[in-house]
């Protein structure tokens, strides 16, 4: 009975994993066959040999390489800025007393509640005034620091950085920014890894704001370029899926490299709060 139950657990979990991963497998199948093979009766269920053809057809229709470069630039710049600025603010909130500290931190928590679409129109107007419409700056600068990262890193720093160490550094004559750079940043590296992956993924997948602010079709991010593939009721699914594959693969690769620690960090936040 117990053994039967143990097997059942893995059967159901295995089924859930299959459902989770099936779209990736089927995307590969469609992207590596011709549309005719995929829709044949009976259809192909195994990867084929037409990937290069399909990718070439996609690239002839929509340029995905420039958007790929744009996306890598935006996601990397945003991640670097968020890591530096959020951790600096988090360190300050975690370890220093200064007038107005409670009010400022309370304000930060309240910001989780503000929904994005309320600020979209004015943000677009601001970008027009600044002349940033169509520029990648419009994506990176507003995202350079955020409430979630400060909150999360503050929790991390409280647990990971002992006060005595900061005190010792101060007695050695290190100033505030020196302590941050030489003492705190090296210690919190595991926390930075989580926040970094999280920010990179969010920036990579961001869609609404790039769609609004990047008006020049020749200068967009990968997600916006991909959505343009779908316009016009195109029925050539193999070509579409080759495009989708380009949008998914780099991110999944980054994720699986760092996955173990990331998943537990991402879900721990919920039960702690």
């Amino acid at each position, binding site marked *: 009975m117990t053994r039967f139950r143990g097997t059942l657990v893995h059967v159901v979990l295995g089924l859930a994993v299959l459902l*989770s991963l099936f779209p990736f497998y089927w995307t590969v199948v469609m992207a590596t066959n011709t549309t005719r093979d995929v829709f044949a009766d009976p259809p192909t269920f195994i990867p084929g040999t037409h990937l290069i053809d399909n990718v070439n057809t996609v690239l002839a229709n929509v340029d995905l390489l420039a958007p790929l470069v744009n996306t890598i630039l935006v996601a990397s710049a945003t991640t670097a800025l968020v890591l530096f600025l959020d951790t600096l603010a988090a360190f300050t909130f975690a370890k220093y007393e200064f007038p107005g500290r409670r009010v400022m931190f309370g304000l930060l928590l309240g910001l989780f509640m503000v929904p994005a679409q309320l600020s979209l129109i004015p943000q677009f107007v601001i970008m027009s005034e600044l002349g940033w419409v169509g520029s990648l700056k419009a994506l990176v600068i507003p995202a*350079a620091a955020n409430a979630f990262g400060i909150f999360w890193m503050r929790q991390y720093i409280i647990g990971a950085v002992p006060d005595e160490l900061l005190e010792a550094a101060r007695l050695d004559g290190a100033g505030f920014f020196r302590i941050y750079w030489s003492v705190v940043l090296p210690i919190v590296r595991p926390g930075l890894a989580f926040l970094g992956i999280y920010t990179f993924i969010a920036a990579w997948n961001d869609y609404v704001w790039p769609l609004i602010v990047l008006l020049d079709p020749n200068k967009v991010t990968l997600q916006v370029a991909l*959505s343009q593939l779908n316009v*016009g009721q195109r029925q050539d699914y193999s070509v579409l899926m080759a495009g989708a594959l380009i949008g998914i693969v780099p991110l999944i690769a980054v994720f699986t490299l760092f996955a173990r620690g990331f998943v537990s960090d*991402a*879900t*721990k936040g919920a039960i702690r709060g």
Partner: protein
Amino acid sequence: MIRPRTAGAGTGRAGRRGVLRYWPQYLAISPFYLLFTVFMLFPVLFSLYLSFQRWDGLGEMTFVGLQQYRFLIEDATFWLSLRNTLLIWVMNTVPMLFFALVLASLLSAAKRFKGFYQVALFIPNITSVVAIAIFFGAVFSNQYGLVNLGLDAIGLPTVPWLSHPWAIKVVIATLMTWQWTGYNALIYYAGMQAIPGEIYEAARLDGAGPVRTFFSVTVPLLRPIILFTVVISTITGMQSFTEPQVLFGNNNAVNPNSGGPGQAGLTMVLYFYRTAFNNNDYGYGAAIAWAVFLVVMAFTILNWRLVSRRADK
């Protein structure tokens, strides 16, 4: 907690010069608050102002008082988008949270492969919505989609997934369920790890089976976490946009029925986007954005109360 050396510890009160001593701290937190003021606080206030104006973004702004809101109350399309959003949200959230609870308790019971299961279940959540919406569009395609091929193969009638009003909602809700079930399951799983083993031991000694234990021990003890997931899924689900936008396109010139045939997939945020950025009706767009905000707030509070009250019994 550390105070800058020069500030007398324990005095508590600092004059203007005292405040200046904290300049490194203020400098350290200033980038966030600067960005926040320019790109969030000011925009939110400005959008409130805009909702009382008529403006196309280029010409003169005209003050119209409550006219945009009065129009909104009588705008059948807005009410349709509200109805669509709520239906899609229910069709997504109920199965999603149920399956998440089941998967989480199975994950707790499993002895091997836990790490693999967790990573595999989390992957849908980090996948680009655009790419996965393209995938769903292909798989649920009316004529050649894999789903209809499968239905046909086992002798069932095919379904016009991307043109029937209910089927459209099923496809969008399924997409969201696929993307978020694993995420919620892992949150529940993390919560279950915090439940002490003795409680389960006691339930077992009392003769409770796994199903009984699940409903009488696990679910009540997970209450705060279930509340958290309901709130998160209310906030995100009520603001769904990308799924219908990519599935059915947003280009008004090509497709006047954005949100699919009969606008069955037109969500509130998609309607907002169309009004503001396709039709350049900034005043009305701002009014819709505030209406969405109020609806999301109202449902978050409602769900909060429902879940906490039910758990109290």
